[in-house]
């Protein structure tokens, strides 16, 4: 008994615990309030709906842990999808299209990285700039008109394997990979180090520039993948795809307990954060919550999810 309580207490030490608690609370409530909630199919839908935000948030989490921020992910989603679709249409090759889409994401990320490391532009501003540029290029490439997008991408975006959405499976695999990368590889640990104390890390011989570049590159790559999934799901690559995604993605990261000031954060938390947000949208539809209350409720849940954590953690910070 004692140890049980102590165990739960010890869980409270993890910042993601309070969001997990909120997720559980919403899920529990839903399982009573709606007959459909617990149907496997509905749960899988929620997983799919969370998947793109979660995948992009994995990269964003690494960036934020390294004390950066990437506002351009929404535009990179759109640009990568457009590049893939246009090349697929023009070359007729799926492989070239998909590769080009991923490389576009990577390239955008690396540009952000270079602007930060070489030109010393604050990442907030640098990625705000690329946000605009990437969107503009996507619009210019398509003249604003969505490009049809199908084949393998559609399978990844909308397909299912044994009823499980492919994009959800992909999210799980990527979350595991990124988790292992962040917690068990040398570079992963160095990402935490440069986020927590860049100066100390540099003095210890960690190559700040290289790691920042990799982190931004990865974030771009994952955003590119997110773009392919999203466009694949809709079978259409819209240059406006992903607009405004940056706020959702960053919110998922922060909800999951990552500190905006760098050095702290867990990949598990990111996935929980993304799931909570998808679950909320699911709840609105299942419960048929009236229009404007949806907006209010969303805000309240976000605040409560993190507020629980704040209340128990008194006097920690300053």
């Amino acid at each position, binding site marked *: 008994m004692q140890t049980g309580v102590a165990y739960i207490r010890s869980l409270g030490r993890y910042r993601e615990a309070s969001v997990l608690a909120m997720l559980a609370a919403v899920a529990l409530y839903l399982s009573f309030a709606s007959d459909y909630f617990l149907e496997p199919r*509905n749960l899988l839908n929620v997983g799919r709906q969370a998947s793109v935000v979660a995948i992009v948030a994995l990269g964003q989490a690494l960036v934020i842990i390294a004390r950066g921020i990437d506002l351009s992910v929404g535009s990179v989603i759109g640009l990568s999808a457009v590049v893939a679709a246009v090349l697929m249409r023009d070359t007729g090759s799926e492989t070239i299209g998909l590769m080009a889409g991923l490389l576009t994401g990577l390239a955008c990320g690396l540009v952000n990285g270079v602007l930060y490391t070489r030109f010393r532009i604050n990442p907030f501003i640098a990625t705000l700039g690329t946000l605009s540029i990437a969107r503009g290029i996507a619009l210019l490439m398509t003249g604003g*008109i969505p490009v049809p997008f199908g084949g393998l991408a559609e399978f990844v975006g909308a397909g299912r394997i044994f009823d499980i959405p492919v994009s959800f499976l992909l999210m799980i695999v990527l979350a595991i990979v990124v988790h292992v990368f962040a917690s068990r590889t040398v570079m992963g640990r160095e990402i935490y180090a440069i986020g927590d104390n860049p100066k100390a890390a540099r003095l210890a011989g960690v190559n700040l520039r290289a790691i920042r570049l990799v982190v931004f590159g990865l974030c771009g790559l994952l955003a590119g993948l997110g773009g392919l999934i999203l466009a694949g*799901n*809709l079978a259409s690559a819209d240059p406006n795809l992903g607009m405004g995604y940056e706020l959702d993605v960053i919110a998922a990261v922060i909800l999951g307990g990552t500190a905006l000031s760098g050095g702290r954060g867990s990949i598990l938390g990111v996935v929980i954060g993304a799931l909570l947000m998808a679950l909320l949208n699911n709840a609105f*539809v299942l419960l048929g919550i009236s*229009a404007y209350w949806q907006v209010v409720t969303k805000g309240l849940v976000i605040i409560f999810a993190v507020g629980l954590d704040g209340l128990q953690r008194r006097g920690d910070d300053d």
Partner: protein
Amino acid sequence: EAPEGGSVAAVENTKGPVRIAFLSFQNNPFWTPVTEGAKAANDYLTKFDATVDFVDLGDELSAEAVVAGIEGALAKKYDGIVVVPIFDGTARIINEATDEGVPVFNIVAEGATESKRLAFIGQDATSAGKQIGEYIAKEMDGKGKLGVITGYFGATQHTQRMNGAVDYLKANFPDIQIVGPFENKDKAESAYSLVQDMMTANPDLSMVYVTAGGPFGAAKAVKDLNLTGKVGVVGFDHTPDNMQYLKTGEMVGLLDQAPYQQALDSSVMLYNYIVAGQEPPAKVIPVTGKLLTPDDAK
């Protein structure tokens, strides 16, 4: 004689060169025919020593952008302005321009506040909603569940389109049950997820109405759920994404706003007013949209 695709002919120019600013946005395929209409007007009116300059207000639709655009056009001393005011809050600047002797022609949509614009040509959102509502009732045989997805809560045009249909249905077809509304922020991917969830909670849903951006996302969800033929989507605008699903049958109704004609006619009517003082036929020139159904797509 009127230009192709338009319904109004230009009169003789006795005043010397005329410059018209055509202020419009560009962020999705809806605007493509608007842009083309403006270009056609320019080509047509060049012969009459008049130019129509297309001015892009950017890709973010807002009243402030419209105000800034009109202010800019006034600073550049245009003789007349065609504008897409869309939102409430543009009446003041339109009045200001008119008072300065620069006539303003509104197209596509305008705010609820009365302004001194020369005329408005466009679709009345509420009646367009009603038009769709009638079609929905017919398709649903006056009963069943209708899911409603709107663009932005609180966006006038979206709300009017939504209420035009919903109010009509509530008044005349009490057996039609409304699910929603939900907000998709004009995003197709969000419409997709909403349809998925709506079908989970309402397996007997028979139709989805999307008032603004991204109806094809809803259609794609219907397709992926293998409900083609059982659930239909209705929405606005004959853009390629939407049209595609009209062919395959997930989309069962698409209303358009004749944007090309709006752009062309408004420019020519404004020109006629400037050079000859010829008033447009009415203060509000309604455009009845063409409702395309799967039959039209074949």
